[in-house]
């Protein structure tokens, strides 16, 4: 018998913080990722690449907005507060996105790795017993399919091109992949059991990490990449044991206390033009 997806009020005390951690991090990552994609509407290597970046940016901001709706419904968090009023140190976005992306390989790394990781975390909620997320996740993942094709295509192209393009792509990939592991979470996250047992989340962190590893292996093969060139150990997947998990917290799903650049947040929020907002 199929169980009717749960309403927000049915979340247990154990499940609530774990769900907030994952959905909050996905929403923040999509918000900042959308900003970066949209910044690269201009300056991309070709008009078509700029149009694709713009379209992906619109998708991400739309997904962030939908996730903010879920956070509002489930946790009484106001979207305006989440976007406009939180200090940078409260954002749970993937740390690779903290600063302006300096070049096209960095955009490709955000696209091929950070965007992919956010999708894999959301995929772990497919078929969730928690209605508000179950109802939105399939459509988001369908739109994300084109993002992954784009990231994969450019990653392969820049790696195969060799020279400076390859070196810059490798450097950006290395930074993005560490950030992605922090975002996915530690090998044993205490609160995970509450989500899995209730069926709110269908795949645990270990499974998400395994799927990421499969996707990265496939990507490396597609690009003709010597995986040792990116990370020691012959895999694009950062060994989670190499991360200082003692400095990691579920509220921000990253190591350390850094956050998105203040100027980036001001631009995203339109702080300079706030006086024009109301009559």
């Amino acid at each position, binding site marked *: 018998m199929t169980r009717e997806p749960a309403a927000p009020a049915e979340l247990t005390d154990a499940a609530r913080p774990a769900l907030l951690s994952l959905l909050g991090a996905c929403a923040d990552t999509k918000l900042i990722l959308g900003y970066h994609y949209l910044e690269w509407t201009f300056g991309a290597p070709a008009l*078509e*690449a700029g*149009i*694709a970046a713009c*379209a992906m940016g619109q998708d991400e901001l739309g997904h962030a907005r939908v996730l903010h709706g879920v956070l509002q419904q489930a946790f009484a968090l106001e979207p305006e507060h989440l976007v406009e009023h939180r200090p940078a140190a409260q954002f749970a976005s993937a740390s690779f996105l903290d600063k302006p992306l300096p070049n096209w390989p960095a955009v490709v790394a955000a696209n091929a790795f950070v965007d992919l990781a956010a999708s894999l975390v959301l995929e772990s909620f497919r078929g969730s017993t928690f209605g508000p997320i179950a109802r939105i996740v399939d459509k988001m993942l369908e739109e994300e399919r084109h993002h992954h094709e*784009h990231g994969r*295509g*450019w990653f*392969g192209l820049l790696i195969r091109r060799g020279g400076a393009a390859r070196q810059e792509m490798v450097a950006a990939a290395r930074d993005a992949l560490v950030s992605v592991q922090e975002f996915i979470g530690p090998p044993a996250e205490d609160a995970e059991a509450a989500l899995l047992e209730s069926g709110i989340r269908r795949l645990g962190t270990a499974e998400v990490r395994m799927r990421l590893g499969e996707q990265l292996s496939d990507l490396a093969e597609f690009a003709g990449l010597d995986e040792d060139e990116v990370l020691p150990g012959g895999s694009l997947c950062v060994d989670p044991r190499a991360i200082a998990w003692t400095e990691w917290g579920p509220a921000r799903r990253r190591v350390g206390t850094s956050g998105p650049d203040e100027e980036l947040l001001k631009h995203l929020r339109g702080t300079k033009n706030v006086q024009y907002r109301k009559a």
Partner: protein
Amino acid sequence: MKRHDPNVYEVFARIAPGDPLCHIGNVNAPADELARVYALKVYDEEDWSEVWVVPRRSIVTERRASVATRREES
């Protein structure tokens, strides 16, 4: 764009299932997999049910000189 530019892909669309394909434009892409994504994003506003993305270099063309001459004369 040159006739044999390897980066040019022609985009054809079918408005409704069963309709003939019609040419709606082209995209410039450095690889096949990107051409598909670009065609979807660039022509997203078009009302199509299916698109075909074809490398221009793969299209075989033939011209009928007599027809071209007749049209020029008329």
